[in-house]
């Protein structure tokens, strides 16, 4: 709740304005109250003082006359009758005495006079209390008094006072007066005083004795009843005689030895009436003030906070995207200014965004058009198709009036028109339009600068050379097509509208021209590729034809050389001697060697050019092949102490392969073994392992030196120990064998020890997946 300005401010204001006010008011009220109360007590105390004074005076006043008797008259000197007359006179005069008894110094009664006459001496005159007083006076030689008692006869309260008369000569008591002071006098006094002082009904003034028995009160029935009042120890609030809570002040005093207590009470409610009124007034005033203050606060806060709230909610609205929000703060102060600035800012923002959105829309559209042109164009690889399509597409998609594509020919530094849109384009192409690199005009300039050259109003520009075929052009842009540093050409774009080629637009078009450059390059490369490929194919064909004719030409004479010499050796035309046999053998062998060489070269060429073809048959029994190869090899070993040993299982799984080539493999290996073994054996073993047939050919020949291991399968390399000795190898045998094994998806490797022998291993899969032509005929 406290994060709202309004609430905070309100709270602050309330705190600042109201709370001090409340505090002050409260303090004032309390003070006033206390003052009023104190005042009340003071008033009451005053009254008690006055009352005391009055009572004392009344009583004393009454007694004076009697006391004066002693001093004035020398009372005891008088006769009894005189004494009586005096006393009677005084009683009759004052009316404040009930009776007066004159006693001897020992306390015996001399005479007694009552209000009702002197004859009315009663036995009751010698009450115990009176006696006590008399005795006290005799003992103390001082005035003494009794407590207030109610006279049996009249029922009235009386106070017995004993007054001693002294003998002037010796200071002894000569006589003693016992005066029954009628307390009614005091009653009257009380009533008078009360009437005087009373502010309302709820004011009481009375007198009690020491013990609290009420002895004088305006309501005499209270007195006659002998009501007792609970004397408080201190001034304070106690119930009055009617039971109402009252401010009570008491004052003790004594007349003689008679103690009295003056009680003055004011009913609290009465006393407080004023106070309450005052408080009420104050409270009302305070409340009104509070309300007023509250109202002011609210108003002020509102004044201040509301505009801020308005601004805040406007800002929120804008944050959520409602840019049409405005703040209507009319005041001329800072808040008003702020709102003005705010509104202005918002308008600007809205405008900018709209602007931006518009531009983005436009650019997006342009880019997508460019992208589309690029896509279409890069798909074409035929440059003759590409460029015309490109020109027309660019023209239509970008709403241009004309598009030309010039390709740069570095050999003569010219920009030659390669494609142009529309009918006009055709005409231009026929005219073989071209620009030299140094010529005037946008196109050559763009090429030279390698930067776009734009004229947005051709009428203004001195650089522009109108093309008679394109009279409506108002703006033109020439964009270089570059790949990296290399210039491929220039894209020339023309429009009927002025100012068509804005900076943003040109940038997009430049992107497009880069794409076009790539497309052109691709097309060119593709063309080159085609040419190269054609040439390669041609070269290949030439090579093949060459090889074919070479093989044909070379082999044909060998037919004669080899076979004639063989024939002669057979002796069919006639017997031949040893020497002739030897020579003829030499011829045959040489011829064979040459044939082998030719075959190997052809094989190698086929393998290298990847045109080795296997004529695959199924169900080939390797044992047959091995036997055949052994047959061919054995003649080579006739003049050497080398034994061919065959360790073949009774049956080998049949496999698929090229029979001729498989024979070739083993012929090669065996003849190699035969070539390099001068004594010992060549052992051929075969067994099945997993899904393979493994053939091992072990010889006890020269072996292969470790440094020659790599050379074994490389064409035309023969090991040192090899060719020197036999002179029969072509250097191609092993490489060809390896390729042939691999063509059958097999493996070939060897282990060798110099001067001990070599073992060749051939592993052929039983179910090779041979990609080759399968002969439909089986042998």
């Amino acid at each position: 709740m406290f994060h709202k300005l309004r609430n905070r401010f309100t709270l602050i204001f309330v705190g600042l304005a109201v709370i001090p006010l409340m505090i002050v008011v409260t303090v004032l009220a309390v003070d006033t109250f206390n003052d009023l109360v104190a005042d009340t007590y003071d008033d009451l105390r005053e009254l008690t003082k006055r009352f005391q004074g009055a009572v004392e005076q009344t009583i004393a006043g009454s007694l004076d006359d009697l006391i004066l008797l002693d001093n004035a008259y020398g009372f005891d000197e008088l006769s009894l009758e005189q004494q009586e007359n005096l006393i009677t006179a005084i009683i009759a005069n004052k009316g404040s005495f009930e009776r007066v008894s004159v006693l001897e110094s020992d306390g015996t009664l001399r005479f007694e006079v009552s209000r009702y006459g002197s004859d009315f001496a009663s036995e009751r005159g010698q009450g115990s209390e009176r006696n006590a007083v008399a005795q006290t006076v005799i003992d103390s030689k001082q005035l003494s008094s009794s407590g207030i008692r109610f006279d049996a006869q009249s029922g009235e309260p009386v106070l017995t006072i004993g007054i001693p008369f002294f003998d002037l000569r010796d200071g002894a008591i000569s006589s003693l007066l016992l005066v029954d002071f009628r307390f009614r006098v005091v009653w009257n006094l009380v009533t008078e005083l009360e009437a005087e002082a009373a502010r309302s009904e709820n004011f009481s003034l009375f007198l009690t004795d020491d013990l609290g028995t009420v002895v004088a009160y305006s309501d005499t029935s209270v007195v006659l009843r002998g009501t007792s009042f609970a004397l408080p120890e201190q001034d304070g609030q106690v119930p009055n005689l009617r039971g109402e809570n009252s401010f009570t002040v008491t004052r003790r005093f004594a007349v003689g030895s008679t103690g009295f207590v003056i009680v003055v009470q004011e009913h609290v409610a009465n006393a407080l009436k004023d106070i309450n009124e005052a408080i009420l007034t104050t409270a009302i005033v305070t409340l009104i003030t509070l309300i007023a203050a509250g109202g002011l606060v609210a108003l002020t806060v509102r004044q201040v906070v509301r505009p801020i709230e308005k601004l805040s909610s406007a800002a929120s609205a804008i944050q959520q995207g409602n840019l049409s929000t405005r703040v209507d703060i009319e005041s001329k102060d800072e808040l008003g200014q702020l709102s003005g600035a705010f509104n202005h800012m918002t308008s600007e923002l809205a405008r900018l965004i709209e602007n931006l959105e518009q531009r983005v829309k436009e650019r997006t559209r342009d880019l997508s058009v460019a992208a589309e042109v690029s896509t279409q164009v890069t798909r074409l690889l035929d440059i003759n198709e590409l460029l015309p399509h490109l020109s027309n597409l660019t023209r239509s998609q970008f709403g241009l009036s004309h598009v030309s594509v010039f390709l740069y020919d570095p050999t003569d530094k010219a920009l030659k028109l390669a494609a142009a849109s529309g009918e006009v384009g055709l005409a231009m192409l026929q005219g073989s339009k071209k620009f030299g690199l140094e010529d005037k005009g946008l196109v050559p300039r763009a090429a030279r600068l390698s930067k776009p050259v734009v004229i947005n109003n051709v009428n203004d520009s001195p650089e522009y050379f109108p093309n008679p075929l394109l009279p409506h052009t108002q703006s033109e842009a020439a964009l270089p097509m570059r790949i990296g540093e290399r210039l491929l050409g220039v894209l020339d774009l023309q429009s009927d509208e002025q100012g068509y080629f804005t900076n943003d637009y040109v940038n997009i078009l430049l992107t497009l021209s880069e794409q076009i450059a790539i497309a052109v390059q691709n097309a060119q490369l593709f063309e080159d590729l085609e040419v190269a490929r054609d040439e390669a194919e041609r070269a290949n064909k030439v090579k093949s034809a060459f090889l074919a004719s070479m093989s044909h030409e070379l082999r044909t004479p060998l037919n004669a050389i080899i076979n004639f010499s063989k024939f002669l050796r057979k002796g069919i035309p006639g017997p031949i001697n040893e020497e002739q046999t030897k020579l003829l053998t030499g011829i045959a062998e040489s011829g064979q060697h040459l044939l082998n060489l030719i075959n190997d070269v052809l094989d190698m060429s086929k393998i290298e050019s990847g045109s080795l073809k296997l004529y695959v048959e199924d169900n080939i029994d390797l044992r047959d092949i091995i036997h055949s190869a052994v047959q061919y090899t054995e003649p080579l070993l006739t003049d050497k102490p080398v034994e061919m040993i065959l360790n073949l299982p009774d049956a080998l799984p049949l496999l698929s392969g090229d029979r001729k080539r498989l024979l070739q493999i083993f012929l090669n290996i065996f003849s190699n073994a035969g070539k390099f073994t001068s004594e010992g054996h060549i052992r051929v073993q075969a067994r099945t392992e997993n899904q393979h047939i493994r053939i091992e050919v072990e010889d006890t020949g020269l072996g292969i030196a470790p440094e020659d291991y790599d050379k074994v399968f490389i064409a035309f390399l023969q090991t040192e120990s090899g060719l020197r000795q036999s002179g029969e190898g072509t250097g191609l045998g092993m490489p060809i064998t390896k390729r042939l094994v691999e063509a059958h998806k097999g493996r070939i490797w060897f282990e060798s020890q110099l001067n001990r022998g070599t073992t060749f291993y051939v592993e052929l899969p039983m179910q090779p997946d041979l990609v080759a032509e399968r002969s439909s005929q089986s042998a």
Partner: protein
Amino acid sequence: MLKVLYVEDDAQSREVILMIERMNPGFMQTTMFSDSSHFEQRLLELTPPPDVILLDIHVKPLTGFQMLDIVRAHPQFSATPVVALTASVMNEEIDLLRVAGFHGGLGKPLNIDAFSTLLQRIVRGEIIWHV
């Protein structure tokens, strides 16, 4: 005795066939054409007609293929094996020969020792490509 027709323009190669004849007396008797001119006519004139025809591919004016076609055209030779003799071992040519419908092929230089056996097998109906 096998009646053999051999069309071959190379004298030495023809000589080799003769050698084979002498090596295998009574095995075969060969009629030689030294070129393929008037092939069809000469073929039809042969009596008795050949049991097997050996054609060198690279003869003129008609090539081995053309001669094969001519042989095919005559029903009396429908069972006669026609074998190509060629010194060329190029895959493409071999393929063409196979596809063309020769009953076999023997590569030059000929293996004179194996020749008779191979020819017998071919005559017996086997297709042999020994190129």
